[in-house]
């Protein structure tokens, strides 16, 4: 009978992760404060900003913008008054 071996796991230790539900969605867009958070890709984000403002004039659009890869975060105060956020483009 072949000898049996026990093998040490090389796999890293992952902490258990507490899972959260998504935030409830909006019932409508009109009258809401929605932030467009831009990271680079102006070919997409410039026409996206124009189109959103044009198609949804009833929304109070706010903008956070960087050319880099880490978004400019909303402050704690801004989060309290922001109803939703569009994050683009993630890469």
């Amino acid at each position, binding site marked *: 009978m072949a000898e049996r071996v026990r093998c040490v796991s090389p796999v890293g230790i992952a902490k258990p992760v507490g899972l959260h539900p998504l*935030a409830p969605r909006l019932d409508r867009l009109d009258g809401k404060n929605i932030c467009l958070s831009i990271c680079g890709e102006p070919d997409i984000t410039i026409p996206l900003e124009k189109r959103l403002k044009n198609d949804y004039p009833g929304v109070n659009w706010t903008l956070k913008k960087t050319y880099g890869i880490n978004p400019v975060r909303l402050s704690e105060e801004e989060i309290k008054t922001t109803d939703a956020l569009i994050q683009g483009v993630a890469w």
Partner: protein
Amino acid sequence: MWGQLPYAADLEKAGVPTVVIDFEDQNNMVMEECLRQGVPGIRHIHASRTLAGPEDVDRMIGPIVQALTSPLIDKEKGAGLWEPNANRIIFEGTMDEAEEFFNQTEWVPHPVNAPIAKFTDGLPVTIPTEARVAKMLKGTSHRPDELVTCQEDADDRAKGEPVLFHPMNWTATVEKVAACAVMAGCRPEYLPVVLAIAESGCYIASTHTFGQWLCVSGPIAKEIGMNSGCGMLGPGSIANSSIGRTYEIMARNLGGAIPGVNRMTSIGSPFEGSRCCAENADALPPGWKGLNEERGFPKDESIVLVIPHVNDGIRGVQFSPGGYRALQKSGHGGMARRLGVKGKPGPHNWLEYILPELWACREGSHSIVMVPEMARHLYEFGFKSKEAVYEWLWKKSFMPLKQYRNFSWVDLSTNGWMGIEHTSGKPWKELPDDYMVPAGGFDPSFFCIIVGGGDEEVSHQLSSHRHLNKDPFFSIDKWR
């Protein structure tokens, strides 16, 4: 996903609905990152890599609005705890069965569309039996159950901080690193080097052609029989090859890195292998410090550099060896013509010859590997320290802003030209076209010289050792 997914997850947890725009090939990565951030299933829309922006926005605008307004489905309302398997023993059975187990693959869909190894770098490994791992652990005084932590303070880490392995930010014990060392074919005496490499967290990010290579400096290189001579970054040396291989095996196992899922190097790189060499400290010209001393370690302390290699290529075939010798011996040939020293014997500054190429297509500083003879020529020419070479290279990199604007990466590094130019302290947009800016990186210390290799006159120029703005030096002796 850099900072975008963690940000979206934080907002979802705070009750702010989000939608993320990404690319289709990054779907696997987004899903995994959402789970890691504790909000599985963050809604995301795929942008096109090829459609013009307005056309792409036409396509996306409806789904974006829907993602913000469409009521949650049951699985999006779920909460709970994700607990990964944490058993110390991963497999028990015969050796044949163990080989089958460790050589398992998993199908990775687009953008890979191929089976990918679950535990290895794709090559057969030595099975990490308890007995073999116990033997490997004799190579260090650290306890098997000790968590791998940072061994000293540095710019980007604090002593005692647990090392988080990239990309999943998992942690590891010394025993797990030893298991990876067994799998890579290491001998116990290599383990302190492997533990020092582990301290780096085995970073693998970037969607571009990204890899790493490793260079050992200090007495341990000779103690364990590393090759710092001919072919030091090539095959043949068990120490060089197996130590280099641990990087990938650790990235796969300790960091959970999977091609096409959470490591997205589009083409990949031969340096993802990874390769390890040693500095030839005995061949340094007088006054030139070893890598350990350059970083402030004592000459008798052993260290390893974990050097990122990005998509700016590997240069190193600019001149024929005979052409190099003709330059230095008698001032003949093409190199002498370019340098304007025809008929004049050396020493000549051969770096002049490669300058036009260094910043031809991309800005940035470089790690320059050179054989001992070429280092000696630079010394005889007048560079009495490595720092003098770094200073010369950096000053030579200055170019008019008008020219600097024509690189691609600078749009990103200047934050779309909204940032501050660091040599003047002024906003980029206020500087005139003829303002001279350094293409050779932040300052001269971003250059690095590694002396090693054989007798044939060759130099490689690769990415800066500080390309990621991380401190790439790790003490090996702390892990003995």
